[in-house]
């Protein structure tokens, strides 16, 4: 009951504050980069310490990826795409590779299917570990960030061992993956999972049974269920609003149809609920990783041989391949004109709507001190907006 009272549904129409009246304060959040909230900036208009209007400003991480890709060979874009979303590059690699494979009619080996799934779930866990640190930090709980980022680093150690890189893995290459797992790798994966799981228990205790966090996060950023379709909301933001959509289940790509899991769905649809739901998805990712380690084939090829990358032409066509990233629907729309370079690549990142349209509306009526916490609770990555 109490949470329901805290819910505010901001109006669809923007306020038109009279800035000359002296009643309002215009202030900017960002674009310094102390965390994910500073990768873009918000122009806030506050009355007292309550935000009455907000405009988002993006572009600080625009690097023209989509333009760059049009003048590079298909294989040359493979090391480029991972940079579009820094904290979870693998979804870019997967969507790009899968789109090319679909257009070129390539079926990847079974082992590659499993290693890709492993890579994506490890990525999900690492990304959420960074996010939860940001979420706790935005409410002043920096200690949790120290724990969770350490855990993320342990997962990155695994990535380093598997792929040769900590952040940009460049592992999911068109045709399959770039290498088999090293000897003893699965054992170390399971060991790390045990450590991470134990730390998640600690985080669960101190963060989710915490009066300060509850007071600030409960009711904050309430997303009504009917917004989900209207704004194209996906991922945990939609699931916390009670919409059981998960592309891993619904599209059944990679090895997901053979894994045992159910989408986690919430009801309260506020910042606390979304955090709780993401914590659940971290445990779920650990569970999926264990299943994958158990079920992944130990032998067989890990990559299908493709034509010479210097001349690889892909038949004319278009496709859109999407995957469930930590934040929702991540997708690559690739158009080929039959040449050796893509005609058009468009990247669909969930933050495009979460951080702009949804954020601009949700922030109205929120205390200035809670703006960062609200933004993190939407789990936004500005680079995927700007590409």
């Amino acid at each position, binding site marked *: 009951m109490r949470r329901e009272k805290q819910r505010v549904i901001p109006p669809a129409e923007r306020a038109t504050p009279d800035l000359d009246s002296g009643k309002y304060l215009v202030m900017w959040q960002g674009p310094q980069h102390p965390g994910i909230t500073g990768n873009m900036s918000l122009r806030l208009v506050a009355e007292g310490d309550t935000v009455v209007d907000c405009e988002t400003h993006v572009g600080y991480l625009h690097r023209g990826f989509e333009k760059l890709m049009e003048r*590079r*060979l298909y*294989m*040359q*874009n*493979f*090391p*480029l795409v991972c940079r579009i979303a820094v904290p979870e590059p693998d979804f870019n690699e997967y969507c790009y590779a899968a789109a090319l494979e679909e257009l070129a009619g390539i079926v990847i080996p079974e082992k590659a299917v499993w290693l890709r799934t492993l890579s994506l779930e490890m990525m999900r866990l690492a990304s959420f570990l960074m996010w939860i640190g940001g979420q706790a930090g935005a409410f002043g709980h920096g*200690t949790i960030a120290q*724990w969770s980022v*350490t855990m993320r680093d342990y997962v990155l*150690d695994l990535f*380093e*061992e*598997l*792929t*040769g*890189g900590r952040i*940009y893995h*460049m592992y999911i290459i068109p045709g399959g993956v*770039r*290498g*088999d797992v*090293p000897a003893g790798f699965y054992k170390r994966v399971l060991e790390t999972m045990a450590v991470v799981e134990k730390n998640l228990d*600690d985080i669960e*205790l*101190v963060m989710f*049974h*915490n*009066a*300060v966090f*509850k*007071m600030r996060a409960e009711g904050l950023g309430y997303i009504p269920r009917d917004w989900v379709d209207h704004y194209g909301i996906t991922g945990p933001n939609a699931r916390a609003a009670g919409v059981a959509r998960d592309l891993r289940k619904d599209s059944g790509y990679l090895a997901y149809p053979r894994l045992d899991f159910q989408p986690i769905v919430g009801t309260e649809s506020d910042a606390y609920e979304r955090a709780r739901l993401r914590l659940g998805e971290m445990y779920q990712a650990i569970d999926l990783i264990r299943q994958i380690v158990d079920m992944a084939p130990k032998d067989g*090829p*890990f*990559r299908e*041989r*493709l*034509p*010479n*990358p*210097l*001349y690889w032409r892909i038949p004319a066509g278009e496709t859109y391949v999407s995957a469930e990233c930590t934040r929702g629907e991540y997708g690559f729309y690739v158009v080929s004109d039959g040449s050796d370079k893509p005609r058009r690549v468009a990247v669909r990142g969930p933050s495009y709507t979460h951080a702009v349209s949804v954020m601009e509306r949700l922030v109205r009526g929120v205390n200035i001190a809670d703006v960062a916490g609200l933004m993190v609770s939407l789990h936004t990555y500005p680079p995927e907006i700007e590409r």
Partner: protein
Amino acid sequence: MDIKDFIAPFAVWKRAFEKPFTVKKPIDERPGAPRYRGFHMNDADACVGCGTCEAICMNNAIDLVPAAGREAKDGDSGLRPRIDYGRCCWCALCVDICPSGSLSMSNEYVWIDRDPDVFRYVPGVEAKPWDGSALGYRRAEGYRLLDEDRVPMPELGHAEAVASFLELVRGYSRAQAEKEADRCVSCGLCIASCPAHMDIPGYIKAVRDGDMDEGLRLLYETNPFPEACGRVCTHRCEEACSIGSGGDPVAIRWLKRYIADQVELSDYAKALPRGAAPSGKKVAIVGAGPGGLSAAYYLSMQGHAVTVFEAEEAAGGMLRYGIPEYRLPYPALDKDIGYIESLGVSISRGVSIGKDIELSKLRTDFDAVYLSTGLPVAYGLEVPGEDHPRVLDGVAVLARATRGEELGLGGRVAVIGGGNVAMDAARTALRHGATVDILYRRREEDMPADADEVREAKAEGARLVEKAIPLEVRDAPDAAGEAALFIWNEATMVQKEPGKRPVPEPIPGAVREGRYDSIIAAIGQGPDLSFIAESDGVPVKRFRPVVDSFGMATRAAGGAPVFAGGDLVNDRKDAISAIADGHRAAIGIDRLLYGKGA
């Protein structure tokens, strides 16, 4: 909210007594993972400087630069990749694609310097602390971006092959040719090794693009014998191929053949350039082999009227009379020659210079003369009994086979020699039902013949007798004049001078003999310079006309300038070198006729 929400947060304090996650060691003690993509390493001896790393690098981070102490040579540009870490993104596509496999990455990732320009270096040439690191990114087992395996060429089986004179090599289909062409990385390392410097990456691209007219045009820019060379070229290009540094070289020769095979002779004129307007100049060419006809082609393209004099009754030279039809079928050769003749080149067959017409007359009647008479005289065995009637000359045997004459080799044949003529003679004898021994004074690996030829001769049933030094040929005791005994001394290989190839030394007492119906000597051939008179002014040294870089031997007064080329002049003694000589002479003659080179 309940009481737990106030108490639980204090659980963080229990961590105060736990061992911290951070470590105190300095950062440089934390090595990268065994697969870490750190700073580049390059095995500069294995690297061939093909620049494929530069081609795949999407960051433009790689330059190819001359490396100290490395000169350009066959199969190595002498260049090495220099990496600019201001641009490199450590994606390692360069490692993945490297044809020779020389590029790799160390697991080192710490490098601090105040000078930004040092972060640009040539791995493997400029020494770095991480050179030779056992750890770091390597291409995974079973993972290549390029295909190291050549598309297999469909060939007749050996049993089938030896039973007929059908062409052994069947040629690529379109799909096979395009797949093979896709293996090429267009580095162009091969061009320098081709005596004619053909635009190999260009015509391979034409195969990939399915543009046969463009392919043919590129072939004819430097070589008017694509059908012949596409079958029997010594393909030095393939030895230089960068793909060959880590796998099978690209089948350049077969791709050339594929292009020529796809275009009908009647369609050649549409694809190939037209000749220049008639110049009014006349050029005589002596010898209608590949070199002479190559000169004829390029001269006629320049508008000159060309007459080729050929002593034999058919044109083609060694391509026709020295190479058996199972390797180069006559229709393929006729196609090459037919196109040259269709341009107005006149070939006077059965006319021998020095017998029917004197060279001096050519010098009077024509504006320039090109000599491309090759090496028609076979060397003898130079042992007692070499004049025995059962000792035959290898080139003559092949020529008689071409003319369709009865060879009468008998059932047991010895072939003496290790060159391509020896292999061709052996395989021709096999096709006439003989059992064949090939005797060679050195080892198999020392043979000057193409490795493929030796392999196929053996596969077809020829027996190889290595380290056999001929001693004598004698009449067989019971069949004087019908069969002969070939006597040889077994040898051992002795390294006489370091760095030079070992020399066969006879093993005392190890004398062997064999009884043969025919002994085919294929030791080598020499020139016939009898048609050149001193008054022609052609300088001759060590049985070779002396020529300048355009093949000009003389422009002495008293007649037209004389050029010479092909086997008569060069060391390589193969068709493609003769073709290159012919092309070069055509350029030289053209310049001279137009006063450009004066």
